[in-house]
């Protein structure tokens, strides 16, 4: 379903560059990674404006959206401000 190639990271975070929501989400993910023993390499960040076709193929209408590379859902939508939800999702 997801033709997301390149580096085989575990997670993909779709963002929109320049948006506050997206910057917050990136910061929240970076903070949460340490708690679940993952590194920045495990999350690929994709800007929907740079790769709209990838966004379309992955049904990314809303940013930020965090999902596993292997599955199109479940997914997290929003600035990921709930730390507990985020760490649960990343585990």
């Amino acid at each position: 379903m997801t033709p997301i190639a390149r580096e085989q990271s575990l997670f993909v975070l779709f963002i929109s560059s320049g948006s506050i929501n997206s910057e917050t989400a990136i910061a929240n993910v970076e903070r949460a990674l340490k708690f679940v023993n993952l590194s920045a390499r495990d999350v690929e960040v994709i800007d929907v404006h740079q790769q709209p076709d990838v966004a379309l193929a992955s049904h990314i209408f809303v940013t930020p959206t965090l999902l596993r590379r292997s599955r199109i859902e479940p997914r997290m939508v929003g600035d990921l401000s709930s730390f507990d939800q985020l760490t649960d999702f990343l585990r």
Partner: protein
Amino acid sequence: MENESRRSPLSTGIAGLDEVLHGGYPLGRATLVVGTPGSGKTILGIQFLVAGVRDADESGLMISFEEPPAALRAIAVRLGMSADTGHNATVMFIDGRPMLETIGSGAFDLNGLVAIVVAEIRRSKVRRVVFDGIDVLFSATGRAAALGKEFRRLIQCTDAEGVTSLVTLKPGTGDHDLPQRIDALEYAADAVVRIDYRLIEGLLQRVLRVVKVRDADFASGEHPFLITARGLSVSCLPAKKKETITSYDRVSTGISRLDDMLDGGLLRSSVTLVSGLPGTAKSTLGANFLLAALARGEQCLLVALDEPAPQLVANVRSVGIDLQPFIASGHLRLLSRNAAGAIGHQHYLTIVAEIEEWKPTTLVIDPISALEKAGGSEIAIAVAERLTNLVKERGMLALFTAIANIELAERETTTLHISTIADTWMHLNFGVKGGERNRTLTIIKSRGTAHSNQIREMSLSADGVTLEDVYEFDGDFLLGSARLERTQQDNRDVLERETRVRELLRELEDRRENANSKLRDIKREMLDVDEQIIAISAESVSLEAQTTRDRNEVRVRRQGHAIGDA
């Protein structure tokens, strides 16, 4: 922006909606469409895109947040979108349905959607975009508050790309702040259309209303609409009357003497109302009118709102009006509608669709008064008015029948109102003459025509409908101007006079006999009264004598003196 004069609007692809919007959606801008579930938003959107391909060779894109692309594509095909149109343009569908397993966590925006749409607009030269059911994105994530801001983001993007867009959404349930939210969206959009449905006297009526169009005028008020296999069609009564076709050509009613009464016939591009009680042969007159038009080689449409049209055709056969060959040859089409089965505007739009598809030149509706059963008198009048406008815009010839008793005028508001719209009004009635009930015809009015004001006797026979020359009115004989068959008519007149005189004599004798018997009764009564007067006088004398005796007796008992004692 406020100073910018309005660019030419873009056709909506929907019959009637262009008239409501005075041309269409604002070109290169966003129109918000608010409607309850099932109100027809999606079809409205697809019609816009299909029209783009068909009429303007423009590609369209629909992102649906509610329905799968396959279902939408099927609707598009049904609305006239075919795979090989010969057009380069096409309609694309993107599945925007939210994933079921979505965890909402904080604020988000629609940049993903914007990026996808912009990429598609540029790649496929899309000129029209529909976002269908945008509210779903927000209700799925529980962040309805973000709707306003994200809506603006979306329309800023489509405006910047110069595409014309529609954004549809449901008013929604369970969100108490939604009315204010929608107000905010309406403020941001260039145009706002609300669609809804409701029940009127148990019948479903769909209505459309334009809330605003920035810097432009539109037809205000509620406009009924219909959803058929061809999509939406909106019933718009324009504030300004459209150019109507005026013609001084006379066309025959099918009854030559009626034509004579009408100074040569009816005017083409006119509406004739034939009113009358049940059984006065309104339908027969209508059928005769059709037959005349068919004989001239015209295409005719017969709309039956009461009994089914084939029944009507069978009925008039007995009076020598055979319409069957014209049905077989395709010159006459029948449209049977159960008046009570749908709201009046639906009947109207069905008739309009038939007229537009087939372009008949003569129209008969029998009886138009049945529309009262389709939502009440007000709707019936409005529909009659719209039909009349349509007939005149197209220069057609129309005859409507209506059940009415003009003696009870105050109860016949529908027919009376329609009569004011009609160019010619004929009333059929029963006249009682010489112990017979005869059908009569009166031309009450005929615009632009010197017409006879006589009451005529109308007769039906195996040869069809004929008008007799003369009919008596209030004991007077009115002679027709048409003394074409004078000799025959004279005999008829003499016979009629003789019958009438005999009848009058008999009547006078009856009255004399009546008076005589009354006189006898009165004499008897006078005798009776005299006898009673005498009896009462005698009684009163004896009563007085008795009274005197009684008083005297009282005095005696009191030891006084009797009256008269000294």
